């Protein structure tokens, strides 16, 4: 197996892009990544996307994006794994380069959500859950996370306001990210007054529906080392699964798929959680941030919220999360999110994170979750000297 490096990154601002469609968003991110990599040709293109068919009537994104990017003829496919689609596409790109089947691979995550109404987007997102046994009963994705949050509060005795630090941290970090959707501070008072979506989850516990695209270029690490530029290597790429329906999990408050994915990644990278300098986790909802911290070994069971209350998740804390705003403030264009997370880790490892720079960041981890924990993809990136 060959070592793989990320030699280019690109992203569009996350937001409501009324003037841009799916293919132009993808193109913008892809071209930025190609410019960053100083390349013009690639061997393969993997497009991460969840909802293009449902929300825009457009499938077949592999060929479509390749065509509009001037890459007609290239090997190209779309990869879908619900909200984990972006990192799933990266995983396949990694496999292709590591296995020697391709040298330069372009991975782009793209989602166009604002062509649909709110209820349409809500129904579409619920397709990540079990259609016959969850969605048919009127469950939304927010409600699924609300079920988790309520049980978590019940079992461990937390109050609603104890979850506020996740939102406050994400929005504080988003302030300094020009690509983030939101640039506004959130106060504890604003969190306490936010409108209820699905009790106990309020608006500020939730990541926003958004448009966006992000891209990375992969190449053999040996090539990258010869370039003379700082090398960011993919030290681990791991996928794990769990039951799709929450009610089918052994213990809904333990994200077994996330734990399995993280520990596989630690094994590949030959590190433990204590060596990770920053963690871009899947904070689609505050409760997911808490459960992800526990699954990846940064907090014991029931103590993910405690970690946040103790101030350990901020940029100066023990394990900074959502360093560029996370899903909550950067935004959550679902199928693009996994690639955004990795782009942001690369920014941190290159020392290009500006005001949000984690000092001396050398090891960064990104974890992208499909559904309520059914597909979990973890990547560990390492900056070489």
């Amino acid at each position, binding site marked *: 197996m060959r070592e793989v490096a990320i030699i280019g990154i690109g992203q569009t601002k996350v937001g409501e892009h009324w003037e841009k469609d799916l293919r132009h968003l993808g193109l913008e991110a892809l071209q930025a990544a190609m410019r960053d990599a100083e390349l013009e040709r690639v061997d393969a293109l993997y497009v991460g996307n969840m909802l293009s068919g449902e929300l825009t009537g457009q499938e077949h994104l592999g060929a479509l994006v390749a065509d509009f990017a001037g890459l007609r003829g290239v090997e190209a496919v779309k990869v879908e794994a619900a909200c984990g689609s972006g990192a799933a596409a990266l995983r396949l790109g990694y496999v292709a380069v590591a296995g020697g089947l391709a040298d330069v691979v372009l991975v782009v995550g793209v989602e166009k959500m604002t062509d649909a109404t709110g*209820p*349409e987007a*809500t*129904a579409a997102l619920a397709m990540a859950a079990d259609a016959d*046994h969850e969605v048919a009963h009127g469950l*939304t994705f927010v409600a699924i996370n609300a079920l988790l949050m*309520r049980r978590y509060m019940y079992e461990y005795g937390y109050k609603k306001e104890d979850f506020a630090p996740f939102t406050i941290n994400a929005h504080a970090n988003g302030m300094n990210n020009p690509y983030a959707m939101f640039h506004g501070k959130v106060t504890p008072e604003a969190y306490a007054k936010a409108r209820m979506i*699905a009790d106990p989850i309020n608006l500020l516990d939730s990541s926003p529906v958004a448009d966006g695209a992000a891209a990375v270029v992969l190449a053999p690490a040996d090539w990258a080392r010869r370039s003379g530029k700082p090398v960011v290597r993919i030290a681990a790429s791991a996928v794990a699964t769990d039951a799709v329906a929450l*009610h*089918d999990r052994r213990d809904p408050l333990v994200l077994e798929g996330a734990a399995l994915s993280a520990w596989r990644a630690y094994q590949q990278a030959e590190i433990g959680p204590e060596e990770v300098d920053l963690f871009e986790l899947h904070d689609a909802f505050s409760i997911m941030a808490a459960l992800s911290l526990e699954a990846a070994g940064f907090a014991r069971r029931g103590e993910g919220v405690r970690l946040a209350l103790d101030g350990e998740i901020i940029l100066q804390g023990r394990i900074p999360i959502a360093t560029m705003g996370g899903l909550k403030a950067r935004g959550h264009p679902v199928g693009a999110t996994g690639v955004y997370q990795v782009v942001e880790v690369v920014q941190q490892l290159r020392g290009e994170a500006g005001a949000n720079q984690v000092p001396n960041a050398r090891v960064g981890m990104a974890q992208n979750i499909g559904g309520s924990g059914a597909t979990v993809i973890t990547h560990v990136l390492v900056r070489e000297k």
Partner: protein
Amino acid sequence: MGIPSKNWRLRNQRYRLVGEICEKCRAPIFPPRDVCPECEAPAQTPYVFSGRGEVYSYSTVYHPPAGFEKYVPYTVALVRLEEGPMLTAQLTDVDPGEVHIGMPVEMVTRQMQTDGDEGVIAYGYKFRPRMR
């Protein structure tokens, strides 16, 4: 909601809580999946659940997906059946403010969704505070 054959296909589990039991490890299974999630043995022997259980967690939905607008607000729950498995269902015949974790509930058959004014009405299980 499309072709009604799906509702028909699910009739035994939706109307009568028919799941399965694993002949090897005796685990009761709901919803039916034909493979035991505990021991991975084939499991296709039908098993009728009592319909009694308790609320494991719940949430009231104010922002529904398309197709559920007219039911808002409604309360969904994870219900732990007394035989062991958990399922997802709406709670009915109860004020959302009275629901609590651990509340004993029982299965009833109710309208789940309608397909416009002239389409098929889908029925299935909901749970209400236990009366029996």
